[in-house]
């Protein structure tokens, strides 16, 4: 469980201050600042290489930042391994390539982390897993292996797997980019439902329809910086920055 002071503090879910990240000599993130409130839905977009994936991967420390501060649920991310484990338990993540565990059934994929990380008893973990598989609308696939499912189904299992840890924040790293077009909708539907239930969500995606429907704020990144940050209606109609306009015309143009 998250430590008491974090939940009581009532501060933002995620606060990023002056974040710097280098890959060798490449400056991937340049003094990025971002604050995400509890229950807020953020959509991050931008051209490839703009640092959007890097930024959300810093939030659960899949990438280590080189400068600045990241505070998640009141706990600062630093080299303290205990902090990192505590934060990862509370932050779910969905990946572009699903990353389901191929040697486990769908049900086991959903049960393993609650059982070995949260130390939940097997019966409880299974009940939770079945509940979330129901929620992502594939309860009948529970005993199958990931390799037997379609891409859209796999991604919904990945969402259920993350939700089974009952996280307070969900990170989505281009969840529909690897999917065939006809499967994108089924994944987005699940995400929309999740958003309507008040989950704190940070989504890197180019699905502008989704952004318009659920986002509280849309963020445009380019060259390792946040270029534009606005509520969706404002973002899509009257963005100030030239680069944003260019990007939008490319994404929405076809």
């Amino acid at each position, binding site marked *: 469980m998250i430590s008491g002071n974090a939940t009581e503090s009532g501060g933002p879910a995620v606060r990023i201050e002056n974040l710097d990240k280098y890959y060798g000599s490449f400056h991937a993130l340049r003094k990025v600042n971002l604050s995400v409130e509890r229950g807020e839905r953020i959509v991050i977009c931008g051209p490839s290489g703009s640092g959007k994936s890097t930024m959300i991967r810093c939030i*659960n420390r*899949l990438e280590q930042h080189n400068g600045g501060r990241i505070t998640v649920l009141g706990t600062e991310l630093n080299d303290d391994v205990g902090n990192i*484990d505590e934060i*990862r*338990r509370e*932050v*779910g*993540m969905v*990946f572009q*390539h699903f*990353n*389901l*565990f*191929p*040697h*486990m*059934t769908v049900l086991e994929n959903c049960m*393993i*982390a609650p059982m*070995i*990380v949260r130390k939940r008893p097997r019966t409880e973990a299974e009940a939770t897993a079945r509940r979330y598989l129901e929620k992502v609308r594939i309860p009948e696939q529970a005993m199958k*292996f*990931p*390799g*037997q499912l379609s891409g859209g189904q796999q991604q919904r299992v*990945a969402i259920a*797997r*993350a939700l089974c*840890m009952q996280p307070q924040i969900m990170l989505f790293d281009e969840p529909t980019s690897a999917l065939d077009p006809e499967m994108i909708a089924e994944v987005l539907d699940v995400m929309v439902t999740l958003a309507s239930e008040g989950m704190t969500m940070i989504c890197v995606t180019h699905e502008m329809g989704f952004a318009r429907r659920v986002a509280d704020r849309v963020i445009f990144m380019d060259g390792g910086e946040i270029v534009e940050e606005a509520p969706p209606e404002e973002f899509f109609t009257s963005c100030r920055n030239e680069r944003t306009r260019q990007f939008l015309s490319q994404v929405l143009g076809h």
Partner: protein
Amino acid sequence: MEMVIVAPPAPGRLEDLRRRFFATPLQALLSLASLAIMVFLAWNLLNWAIFSAVFTTSGGPEACQAAAGACWSVIAARWRIILFGLYPFEEQWRSALACVTVVVMTVLSCIPAFWTGRRIALVWGAGAVLYYVLMKGGVLGLTYVGEEAWGGLALTLFIFVTSCLIGFPLAICLALMRRSELPWISRTTGIIIDGVRSLPLISILFTFAIVLPFALPQWLAGDKLYRVILGSALFFSAYQAEIVRGGMQGVPNGQAEAAMALGMSYWQRISRILLPQAMRNALPATINQFVISFKETSLVVIVGFFEILASGNAAYGTGEWRFAYIEVYAFIAFIYFVFVFSLSRYGAFLERRMSVGER
């Protein structure tokens, strides 16, 4: 109009044979000639091994030597030496039970129902104690038999199983260390692995059996048998470590990331996510390594142990059965075959079982 496509009927077995082997007169001739040669060879072999062979010991070596076929009486007369080596004659039932123990332990641990840490540990713990008590004695009214008198199949199995048992976990540790992000760990491990692999097994066995006692204090050196086992375990682990590492390299990075994102600790990621997938990738090469190691146990003869091959030499080496070495080697080959073939079939079973979730 609707088109109905019907696959041509599969050719019958006779038709298939005709097409493959008797399509032209020349082909037919070659096929018949090959068949004749094969029948001739098979007949000769069977004639030697069975029809003209002597199976009973009643006539003694002389009658046996006079026969045209194989002299299997040597096996009937000397099988105890082959299986148990120099182990005291009246106590050989203990050695036989010890062999059975090892086989039962191995079979049990190959059954998926026993694949939990506690059950495997129980099987091997109980098995190891049972084996040791049976072979060494000195307790429960069993007479004491020192390791120097162990031999034959019992010794071969003991060396093989213990080497693998020590070598396999060691191999996993070495593989993980070689993948370490800390350069001084990964480089040192790399040097150890490559160093051991650059040496012939014989030199390692010599070093552990004969040189090590000079370098270590008496109480640490232990019996020669255990030093030899450690040496062969080290050799096994160097090769197996690279096999395991290869398996790990086949597991995509995203697997570890997903496990990390779910909050799993390093050891949870290794034991639940990385190793199961890596071992699946590494399975064919691993079985191969087991097979090689089983046959390499015969090298311990050079440091003075009478494993099954050396015991076989002793079985025909004394006077009267000196002529019957082919039969003895055929028998030993058969024993090797039984064990190695079972190992290979078990490997195939595992591969089928593990491929359940593959795309």
